[in-house]
């Protein structure tokens, strides 16, 4: 019997790996996800084949409850709220790890008579699981705007405090390891780890949350692998470790794509705060304002208009209005394309999600590398709530925090219209020379209402 289970586990993790490979390519991703899900089904069935399994009713109760909660929350969540939903799902995974470790401790009476690797892996899982649970809850709260998105910290005491919490949790683990069998110790360990999770994520700004969630995801994976080592379960070891490793790489890729470093993120600050930027030569430059009517005329007689959406379009939920305006332009023979910067918005693929929701034809969405060559042939670049991703300082100012980040070469267009509410800076908190470019005109106001007014003007033309 146990041979059959192991064989099924091997099949299960082969499916996980194969599915994961699929998830890395756009054409195979959907299928990859379902292959991995099939692997999970196989793993669960294999486990239920364990001889002499008891407590069936409770098992069914737990699975039923989880399904009843999981399906509707996944089904009903809005596209733009998905990152925080992932944070929640990740958190409960970590919570499960912590709870299992706790019960293990109780069942094994403080690991008396177990080989050394059992307490080590099990307590590691307990610490990371608890940290991941509470950290994920904070990340959820921030993105869902239940908690304030700005960094909350106790200032310069933050680092020593976090370090102290970690030390306390590890101390509990060591005490348990050397043989002290006390419920207080394991509870203390879980509580210290929980506090560490809270204290680590609170000081991080809302905009850095996608990276933090990815990091916590990798942690939960590692803790699942540790649980697998403690329980001697191949499926847990393989699946957990794969998530741990791939999650670390992914976190790194995400941080790199937005020109941030993981240590800097975890140390807090920046994300959400306006850093004192070296505004350089900006000073006595002037800003040209335009009106919706002028903007409409300019675009109506263009050959090609490239829309550059950014975080502001997401805030204003202007995607449907934009799509409508584009249709009006197209009916006048104007060619409309969308320039999608990889980190425009606040999560990877943010713009794709929004524009897909508004049924913008896929062919009109152009990735950065594709479209950058086209700006010089573009009559009007219409920047809708984008800022950093168009900032030429990334090319020209080595002192800028975004120096080196690839940007959309909006400044090469023949003329540029920028839709935003004020001269405020974006995520990186820095000035944008583009707005002072003689070719640029600004149309101030909420993106959605500005676009709608432009559409009215277009109809009136």
């Amino acid at each position, binding site marked *: 019997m146990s041979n059959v289970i192991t064989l099924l586990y091997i099949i299960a993790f082969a499916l996980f*790996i194969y599915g994961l490979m699929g*998830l*890395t390519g756009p*054409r195979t*991703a959907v299928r990859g*996800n379902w292959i*991995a*899900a099939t692997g*999970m089904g196989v*793993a*669960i069935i294999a*486990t239920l084949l*364990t001889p002499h*399994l*008891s*407590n069936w009713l409770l098992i069914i109760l*737990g*699975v039923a*409850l*989880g399904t009843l909660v*999981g*399906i509707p929350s*996944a*089904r009903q969540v809005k596209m733009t709220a*998905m990152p925080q939903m992932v944070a929640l*799902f*990740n958190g*409960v*995974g970590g*919570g*499960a*790890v912590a709870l*299992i470790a706790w*019960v*293990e401790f*109780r*069942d094994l009476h403080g690991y008396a008579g177990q080989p050394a690797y059992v307490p080590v892996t099990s307590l590691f899982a307990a610490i990371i699981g608890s940290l991941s649970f509470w950290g994920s809850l904070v990340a959820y709260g921030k993105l869902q705007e239940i908690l304030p998105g700005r960094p909350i910290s106790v200032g310069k005491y933050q680092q020593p405090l976090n370090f102290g919490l970690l030390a306390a949790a590890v101390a509990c683990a060591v005490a348990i390891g050397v043989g002290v069998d006390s419920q207080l110790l394991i509870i203390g360990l879980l509580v210290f780890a929980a506090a560490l999770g809270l204290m680590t994520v609170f000081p991080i700004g809302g905009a850095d949350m*996608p990276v933090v969630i990815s990091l916590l*995801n990798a942690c*939960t994976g590692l803790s*699942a692998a540790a*649980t*697998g080592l403690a*329980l001697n*379960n*191949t499926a847990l*070891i393989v*699946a*957990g470790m*794969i998530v*741990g*490793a*791939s999650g*670390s790489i*992914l976190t790194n890729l995400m941080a790199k*794509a937005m020109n941030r470093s993981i240590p800097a993120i975890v140390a807090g600050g920046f994300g959400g705060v306006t850093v004192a930027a070296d505004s350089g030569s900006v000073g006595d430059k002037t800003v040209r304002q335009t009106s919706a009517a002028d903007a409409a005329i300019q675009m109506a007689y263009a050959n090609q208009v490239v829309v550059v959406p950014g975080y502001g379009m997401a805030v204003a939920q202007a995607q449907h209005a934009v799509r409508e305006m584009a249709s009006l332009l197209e009916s006048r023979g104007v060619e409309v394309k969308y320039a999608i910067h990889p*980190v425009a918005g606040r999560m*990877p*693929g943010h713009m794709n*999600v929004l524009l897909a929701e508004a049924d913008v034809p896929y062919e009109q969405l152009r990735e950065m590398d594709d479209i950058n060559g086209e700006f010089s042939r573009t009559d009007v670049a219409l920047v809708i709530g984008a800022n950093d991703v168009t900032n030429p300082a990334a090319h020209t100012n080595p002192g800028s925090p975004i120096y080196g980040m690839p940007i959309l070469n909006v400044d090469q267009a023949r003329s540029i219209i920028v839709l935003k509410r004020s001269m405020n800076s974006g995520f990186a908190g820095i000035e944008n020379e583009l707005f002072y470019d003689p070719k640029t005109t600004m149309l101030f106001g909420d993106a959605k209402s500005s676009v709608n007014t432009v559409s009215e003007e277009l109809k009136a033309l």
Partner: protein
Amino acid sequence: MFLANLAILVLAGFIGFAVISKVPNTLHTPLMSGTNAIHGIVLLGGLIVLGTTASGVLDKILLVIAITFGTINVVGGFLVTDRMLGMFKKKPEQKGASTDE
């Protein structure tokens, strides 16, 4: 036993590294969500402990919660990933435009 498990752990780690080498930016979030669903595998741990060694009310309560959590992680994780990936559904039409694999 532990050493065989350690070997398996190391190999799985390499697989994780090797698979995620080049991923387009737009797939970062779905990929995070998909791997997130996979670590819901801890559910198995809950099943095994509850089904074999658990005794006492507190243990059982904790484990039912753990199983509920794990199931949410798995079920919700795969479903939400699938929904995210909905935006790639339109891609096949312009398949010819992409380079040969």
